[in-house]
């Protein structure tokens, strides 16, 4: 076999490569994004100000935005980077208690509120860094157990601190509500909190760093052999993800007016995981939809807390059975039953191969 012989025309070697087709310029897609955000904001703001969305439904809405923030963070860790975390609520607790503490011990002005929320997010991220270094070496089930334990340790630690400092099991209150339906800029806080979270995670995913995260999820050995520093990628995803858990915590503090250790238990971590899995692992648009859907479901099931957990458990089992992966749960179901051919714009048109 004479392989040295040069073929007359070798595509790419001897003939020039066609330039890839230009997509939208960055400023164009940026403007479109800005337009969408402004549009959604104005519509919701008008509906709220005119009272079409009353205080009750506004409360539900705020809860959904807070869930979106936390779940997007978890999606980065679990869906995009493939690191199973069951301790997300623990990091949320760090943000919640930090912001409450700051607001309680300062003027309670908007500056101290924002400062407290930011500090809470940073501390959650720092803790994410500290615990990520040893635990992210673990794989699969072991990592899940370690993060589960960690979340519980945080909760139990807070529960057992001096009543005067963090309120013990009775919780903290008296710092006022700043992200609730009844506070003037409450809607702006949670809405723009969610927008910032979405933009940050999206920009991260659509970058070399995000691609490295997905590669780590897909195949650790291959990604490491292609020059991806596993530890660095996992830890940075964990830090960013826990930062947003902390942010969600700070907003949650101002949303409920009282925070207690039991609000940040294992079941809360499971709820975030539910949102991520229902929306599709790694699918950030899906997280938005799933958070909204679960928020509405919770509203209807408010007085049947036990039934809610049964429904969650059933949903989880079904998800495991149909292995939805990145495809959002409801899309997968639609495919299973061959319902009408809706064309949802946010759906990734990707086929799943196992």
């Amino acid at each position, binding site marked *: 076999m004479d392989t040295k012989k040069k073929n007359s025309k070798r595509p790419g070697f001897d003939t020039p490569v066609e330039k890839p087709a230009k997509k939208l310029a960055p400023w164009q897609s940026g403007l479109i994004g800005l337009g969408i955000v402004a549009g959604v904001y104005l519509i919701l703001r008008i509906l709220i100000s005119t009272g079409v969305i009353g205080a009750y439904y506004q409360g539900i809405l705020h809860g959904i935005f807070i869930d979106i923030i936390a779940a997007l963070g978890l999606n980065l860790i679990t869906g995009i980077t493939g690191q199973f975390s069951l301790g997300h609520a623990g990091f949320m607790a760090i943000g919640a208690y930090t912001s409450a503490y700051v607001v309680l011990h300062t003027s309670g002005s908007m500056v101290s509120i924002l400062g407290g929320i930011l500090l809470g997010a940073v501390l959650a991220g720092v803790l994410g860094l500290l615990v990520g270094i040893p635990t992210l070496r673990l794989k699969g089930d072991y990592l899940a157990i370690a993060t589960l334990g960690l979340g519980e340790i945080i909760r139990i630690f807070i529960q057992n601190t001096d009543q005067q400092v963090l309120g013990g099991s009775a919780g903290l209150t008296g710092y006022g509500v700043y992200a609730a339906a009844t506070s003037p800029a409450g809607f702006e806080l949670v809405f723009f909190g969610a927008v910032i979270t979405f933009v*940050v995670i999206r920009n991260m995913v659509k*970058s070399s760093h995000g691609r490295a995260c997905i590669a780590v999820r897909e195949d650790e050995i291959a990604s*490491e052999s*292609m*020059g*991806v520093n596993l530890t660095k990628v996992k830890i940075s995803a964990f830090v960013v993800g826990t930062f947003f858990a902390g942010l969600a915590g700070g907003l949650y503090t101002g949303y409920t007016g009282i925070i207690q250790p039991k609000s940040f238990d294992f079941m809360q971590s499971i709820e975030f995981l539910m949102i991520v899995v229902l929306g599709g692992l790694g699918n950030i648009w899906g997280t938005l939809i799933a958070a909204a859907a679960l928020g509405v479901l919770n509203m209807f099931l408010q007085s049947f807390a036990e039934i809610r957990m049964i429904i969650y458990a059933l949903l989880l089992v079904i998800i495991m059975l149909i292995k939805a992966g990145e495809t959002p749960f409801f899309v997968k179901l639609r495919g299973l039953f061959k319902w009408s051919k809706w064309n949802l714009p946010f759906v990734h048109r990707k*086929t799943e191969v196992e």
Partner: protein
Amino acid sequence: MAVLDVKNLSKSFGGLKAVSDVNLYVKKGELLGLIGPNGAGKTTIFNLLTGVYVPTSGTIELTGSRGERAEIGGMKPYLTARHGISRTFQNIRLFKNMTVLDNILVAMHQNARYTLLEAIFRLPRYYSQETRFAETAAHILALVGLDQKAGELASNLPYGEQRKLEIARAIATGANVIFLDEPAAGMNPSETDELASLIVNLKDEYDLTIILIEHDMKFVMGLCERIYVLDFGTIIAEGSPDEIKHNKRVIQAYLGEEA
């Protein structure tokens, strides 16, 4: 000049000595073959040279493009990759749920010069790097004939193209030493011929040093300039394809396996 100089390399798994006391060298720009019966330890040697396994004993010295020397035995895979070493896998290990293009772009990640914060805030360096990445990736994909499939999921490619994508991905790291583990496995004769000329073309284009494992003797003998033969973890022969073809121990090892 030797790019790789391997001395007394051994690897044991529990009681099993998969590689024992192997000495070999790889010259710069060489197309080197590594052959031997199944279970001889070929893939294990690749895993040792690329950092996937830590040697039980022995040294692996790499000479970089500027003549600098580094001991890479036991170095983590991502660090050997930074030293310009890359590879493909015997059982294809593509990032299945990523597009063909993204598979290439992941390999270029180690050359990304923008930070995570620059990406999040979409600073100018992000755009300039991404544009250059896209151009380089398009070029590499065109070389292996996958430019039309850039947007497809890697798992949707036919088998032969998956093998090519793995080679393209290895090249995209910017490596100058590339290990190919059974690149022609599962290909038909015409695909194999095409692959052989592709490998030669890529080697010329990127000035590569290539070490490959392959069972297809016609392929190896036609392509490689020099060959090592491995049996039970030790090197039993080294030489040009002609020398290897007529080597008694090699014939024995192969006949012994068939019997």
